[in-house]
């Protein structure tokens, strides 16, 4: 159970992501907007020759577009053959957690419910374990749950 987790903050919440889901964490430089998109699709961004679809997790949770100055970082992930950049407020650490994932406790905010899978504890603080694929295909996940 010594899995590597990435710990990040997004939309005021501490989250943990399995490192196997992550390709890289990059600084977002420029996002080309895509008209006609739901609010959480922020646009496209080029990472070398790859084009990332930028997902604004904050907008997904709160339903409001995050202001563009507060997108310093994006987690790059390959989800079913396409490249995505999931925008987070900050990334704090990447390390193994001896205990692994713990079951959810307490009343979870409804906005997070479709995405949260478990709790991961790092240095005594709880983090919400989320799956990046869940942000892209939330319905599939809720069907499975």
């Amino acid at each position, binding site marked *: 159970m010594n899995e590597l987790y990435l710990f990040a903050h997004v939309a005021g919440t501490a989250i943990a992501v399995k490192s196997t889901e992550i390709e890289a964490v990059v600084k977002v430089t420029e996002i*080309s907007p895509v*008209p*006609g*998109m739901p609010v959480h699709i922020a646009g496209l961004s080029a990472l*070398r020759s790859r*084009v990332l679809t930028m*997902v604004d997790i904050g907008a997904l949770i709160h339903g409001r577009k995050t202001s563009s100055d507060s997108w310093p970082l994006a987690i790059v992930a390959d989800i079913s053959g*396409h490249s995505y950049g999931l925008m987070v407020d900050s990334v704090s650490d990447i390390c193994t957690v001896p205990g692994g994932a713990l079951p959810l406790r307490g009343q979870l905010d409804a906005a997070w419910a479709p995405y949260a899978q478990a709790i991961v504890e790092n240095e005594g603080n709880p983090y919400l374990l989320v799956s990046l694929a869940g942000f892209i295909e939330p319905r599939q996940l809720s069907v499975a749950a």
Partner: protein
Amino acid sequence: MDDLLQEFISETQETLEALAAEVVAWETDPTDRDRLDAIFRFFHTVKGSCGFLNLPRFEKLSHAAEDVLSDIREGKRVADPATVSAVLAVMDRIGELAEAVASGAALPNENDDFLIQSLHQAAGPDGAEAPAAPVNNGRREGQQSPLRTIRLPLTLIDQLMNGVSDMVLARNELSRKLRERSDPDLDSAFERLSTCVADMRDAISKTRMQRVDRLFAAIPRMVRDLGRDLGKVIDLELEGGDVEMDREMVEMVVDPLTHIVRNSIDHGIELPAQRRAAGKPEAGHLRVAARQSGNQIVIEISDDGKGIDTSRLVAKAIGDGTLTSESAARLSEQDKVDLIFRAGLSTAEQVTAISGRGVGMDVVRANVERIGGVITLDNMPGQGLSITLRVPLTLTIIPGLIIRAGGQHFAIPRAAIVEILHDSNDTLSLSSVGGASIASIRGVRHSMIDLEDVLGLHKPDHAGPRTIMVVRSSSGIPFAMGVTAVENHEELVIRPASPPIMAAGVYAGMTLPDNGQPMLLLDAGGLSNAARLPNVIDDSAAREADEAVAAEAEIQTVGALRFIEITGEERLLKLSLIERVEDIDAAQFGASGGRGFVRVEGRLLPVANAHHRFEGEMVTSLRLRDGENEAYYPVARVIDIVQMPSVPDMLLSRGPVCGIAVVDGAHLEVVDAFALFASLPAEAIEEKSAGRCILADADDIWAQEILAPLLRHAGHDVVFGIPAGEAMHPDDIVLTTRADSDVETVPKGQPVVRLRSARGPGSKKDKSIYRYDRDALMAAIEAARQGRAA
């Protein structure tokens, strides 16, 4: 073990595919030892490998087939049609089993014994079956020496492709940085690197290519089986199997092609008796040919059957209520033939098992157009039908237009654009009724949308006219779309967009242009759906009548030369500008001062497209003339003389191309003759880069021995003595050593440089130059010449 099994399965499947055609060919010529051996080898290999892999059913089947074939090899049996059918059946079963093993499904449990029995019984001496017609697939040669190949996973190739794309982007960035500091050494090294990268990109994209042979592999078998089922004799000709196209493209073309071939055999080619009655040879002729034309693959399927009965098509359309009889009367012959593409129409009297499966030509056309292709029919009633498919070379590179709307850039496939005009154009009038906008272009009314409105963008205030494009989606009807401007046209590398973006329904993919800003490719059909445009054709016949009136005045065609540029694009150039086409020795081309030139008949003429280095020894060049000026235009190859509309179908005002004309269904760029001649240097290129220096004192020893060599060394032509009776060139400069030289002999206005032997000037007015002051002398010559030029 799993690896071995996997290898065995994929190898078997591949050989089966290739072999199907061989078996049919062998049937027509049972004495053909090479083919027999090839088939025998296949069964032998299967038998050998599956014994080892413990696949008893494979072993039993292949063993039986091998037995029969070896009898035939030894002459104990003849390869009659029944035997061939039985062998084919065994091959099919092996294919099914292989498929099942590959997908991990349960093996189909038909009884193999029946097949094996029929294999043995087939040897009956009845031979009553009609001999199959010869199949000429023209690929006998070189069968025995397969290419050395290895198997690669597609993902690895995609990785390579991405790597090269990264490299190109890095190269572009480097190029930008290099431009800021100009260092010729660095530039040439960089140039070399650029060439390597470009070559590499080409080579990598070739790895995705596949021979059209693969597309053809299934046809002989299909033709044979269908022919036997229907009692028709078909002489099949396959051509151009070595043409290569993108492997994904091959997959996309298989279905339409299969359908067309089936149709042709089922409905096109008649029964032998009917053919005889019609005075045709009993065996119908079916020809499938592929060739590359520019960045398109052209696949032509032609038969000599009865063609399409247009009167029946029309009757059927009227019967369905999709066409009124009065509009039918106005249809041209081609319009009538095109009715076959309407959903649910077919001329077949009865639905047969072969082609009447509810899949009509409308589906074929939709499939072809979905991949950016074009399908055209050439109907010769009673004589046959020829169907031409034109598909792009790859799925991933398409010619597109870059448009600007709402402050953003988008791409749209060029094939979807019918016409581009400014809203200030006289032929266009915009009106709106009940909230709907209508654009009437030369009397034809189109639904009008603004791209910004469809996409929910803010429409910026924009000085100057907006651009209206007439867009035709593959299935829908044309509509007019307003955008801020059309910026450019280029070949775009299209990649799929992620599902959330595709979900919007108006995008077809995305592309990453050199500037590193991702751009979305618009989907014409999706836009029309998103704008909820009425998808009703207004009476097309009446509309066409209107158009015909307008068109009479408008469609004037001019002769044009269709050629391939050295850079590979296929373009058109007005024939009247071309004096002749010549092959010129590549060594005669050169460049100076950034302009290309070519030496022809002792003169230097400008090269219009700046190419001056070539691979071959001879260069095909067009000699152009606008009445006064002449120029050469090197091309890779001249294709044909064609008629193009005098005004291109689509106007662009950028770069060397003034528009796009549609010729024979292909979109070709038209070279802008105006821009071409405008870019030429104003004066004819003089071979001497400097004018002549005329030494007035021809007898002077100093002038002969010291001045003349000095001038020659500096690149000037030297003439001794003022030429008598010959007009002097304005750039000629007279040099004289005598201060009081007889000025009368120097024509008026000719620049004169005076030299003196004294070190200091004789007087204040003396503008002569000390004769050993080299710098001053050169400067004076230069100044005198520039004084002329000014």
